[in-house]
């Protein structure tokens, strides 16, 4: 049996590849970076290291070969002959993936399932639509399965270099369960270790996004505000822990109202999630989790999506609003997304930025809440400053009374009412 994995990253190799290999599939990895393809062909394997506390396990994933994405004919041949495909490239790269795999899928005799490992409730449906746009007749690709997958494992990093002859090591925690969208499947799917096939994929994805991912992002953005280096450090800060807990609870309440209490999870689950954030063996930097804030502030993503769902359920999402404000203040050199947010904040107001980035309705109370939260942290929000206390908003340093304008401050902290 052969499985094709598109995207040799932390999820593609560190999770999907490991699961598929353990189920007996031979792995063929499609890599955009020719050096990565060459490395995998040269070494033939990689490692996955899972750890938490004093426990660690390292698994060798062997029997791996790779095809560079630029070798379109070779890719098409592999796609046409695989027994299962997995895509893990980042949701914004799905159009490029569609271009890549469409010829091979169109040429297949038998239907195949493409498992789409992206943090989007309808990633499977979106890929299906992208395929149909690219191939005539669309039926030649619509007969295949495009099923979203929600993964619980936190994969935080990769050790090693493709330039070396030593196997790469992907680092993550022990979580191994994943849910596959039944509605998107077309062909038979052999059972895989840790897999659940669900009829309520949207609920599963939102539960992961609006609780775990929201909490993870909250820990990172608040940790960054207070100057911590790692997620496992930030979550130890009592103030951060409290806001993270409250933000995830707001997410759960929104989910419960939409999907039912069983789908939302309970307080016990929150404690389990916080325990995962305490996992120091991941040594997960705050800046890694916080990066790309413009994507994380999108309307349906983990923060704004969770907050809007909560507000729709009558929950005042103060904690999520505070985290959103913290995300708006995130600064990282060399992060174009963070620079985009910062630029938007400099030119406009908080609400204006949220309207642009998150599609927020100006009449939504969430905008007002975020604006209020922003006003508490904006006063001394300089790149190199950090909060000593979330509660009283005290910063490590304050501008002198005669100081000129700070480095990054929105033009106006008042809420704008668009014409």
């Amino acid at each position: 049996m052969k499985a094709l994995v598109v995207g040799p990253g932390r999820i593609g190799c560190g999770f999907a590849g490991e699961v598929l290999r353990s189920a007996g599939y031979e792995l063929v990895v499609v890599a955009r970076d020719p050096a990565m393809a060459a490395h995998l062909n040269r070494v033939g394997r990689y490692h996955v290291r899972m750890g938490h506390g004093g426990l660690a396990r390292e698994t060798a994933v062997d029997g791996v070969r790779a095809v560079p994405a630029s070798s379109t004919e070779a890719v098409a041949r592999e796609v046409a002959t695989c027994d299962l495909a997995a895509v893990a490239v980042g949701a914004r790269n799905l159009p490029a993936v569609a271009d890549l795999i469409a010829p091979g899928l169109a040429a297949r005799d038998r239907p195949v399932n493409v498992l789409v490992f992206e943090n989007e409730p309808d990633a499977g449906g979106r890929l299906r639509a992208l395929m149909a746009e690219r191939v005539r007749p669309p039926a030649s690709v619509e007969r295949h399965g495009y099923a979203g997958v929600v993964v619980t494992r936190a994969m935080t990093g990769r050790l090693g270099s493709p330039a070396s002859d030593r196997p790469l090591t992907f680092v993550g925690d022990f979580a191994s369960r994943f849910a596959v969208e039944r509605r998107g499947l077309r062909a038979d799917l052999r059972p895989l270790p840790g897999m659940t096939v669900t009829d309520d994929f949207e609920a599963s994805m939102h539960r992961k996004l609006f609780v775990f991912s929201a909490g993870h992002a909250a820990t990172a953005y608040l940790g960054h505000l207070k100057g911590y280096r790692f997620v496992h450090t930030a979550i130890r800060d009592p103030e951060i822990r409290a806001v993270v807990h409250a933000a995830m609870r707001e997410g759960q309440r929104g989910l419960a109202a939409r999907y039912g209490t069983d789908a939302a999870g309970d307080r016990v689950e929150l404690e389990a999630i916080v325990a995962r954030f305490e996992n120091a063996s991941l040594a997960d930097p705050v800046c890694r989790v916080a990066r790309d804030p413009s994507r994380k502030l999108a309307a349906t993503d983990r923060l704004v999506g969770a907050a809007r769902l909560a507000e729709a359920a009558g929950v005042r999402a103060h904690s999520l609003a505070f985290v959103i404000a913290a995300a708006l203040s995130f600064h990282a050199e060399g992060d174009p997304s963070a620079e985009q947010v910062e630029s938007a904040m400099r030119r406009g107001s908080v609400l204006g930025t949220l309207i642009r980035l998150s599609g927020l309705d100006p009449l939504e109370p969430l905008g007002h809440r975020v604006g209020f939260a922003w006003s508490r942290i904006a006063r001394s929000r300089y790149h190199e400053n950090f909060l000593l206390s979330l509660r009283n908003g005290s910063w490590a340093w304050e501008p002198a009374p005669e100081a000129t304008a700070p480095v990054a401050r929105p033009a106006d902290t008042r809420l704008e009412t668009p014409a």
Partner: protein
Amino acid sequence: MRIGVIAHRRWPAALGPLMSEAARLLVEWGVDVEAVHPEESSGDVAALGRECDLYLLEARSDLALSLAGALEADDATIVNPPAVAVTCRDRLVATRILQRAGVPVPASYAVAHAGKLAPLLEDGPLLVTPWGACAGGGSRLVRDIDELDAMTDVASPVFAQRHDARDARLRSIACVGGQLFGVERGWPDDEGYEPFPLTPDLCELALRAGRAFGMELFGVDLSMSDGRPHVTEVSSVPRLSSVPDGALRLADYAYDAVRRVVSDEPLRTVARGAGAL
């Protein structure tokens, strides 16, 4: 990963409260933490081998600095290196380094014994500190000849700095990996420190002082004179007990540092808060 904390025993615990809390966090995070008490070592110089990936040098006694120097000779990575700690402790050398780095310092003097300071009292009070490798004890404010004559118990030689009588606050800035925290108390009588917000010029002053010694983990004491801040002392051990979440921040820094050492990455980081002002 293994961190050694070179510290004096704080009976009954092995370490002081803040360092103990930081150590507890590090242990939870999978780092072995060992308290190294110089006064309890066997003293066998040949047995002084590097056993930890990183050492934090908290104790600054002669013995601790010598033993740390011996560990460093065995390729141990020590924060801060004993040569730097010795330099900070030597007020004469430290003041000269600060001056050279352009850090404002009070007018400073060094004499073989306190009595030679008498002529200087005509221009105002002095802060007098025992100085030199065998010195201990804090500074004393000397305002007149009588107070000078009473200093019979102060070890010689001494280091003295001009003190502005109008300055009634003792301010200190702690730096942990480039992050700066201000604490202050009333002086000379108050006991407890409280946080105070720094200003950009104080941040720049502290960072410049730290850069002059190559330190990322340090403390500076400040005095005000004619409305301008001056650095009176640099310490290779920052005062963190009054810093909010001080133990957590120290553990955060130490975890990053030991991870870097084990990964052969540069120890020196330019964390947020450092150098960008």
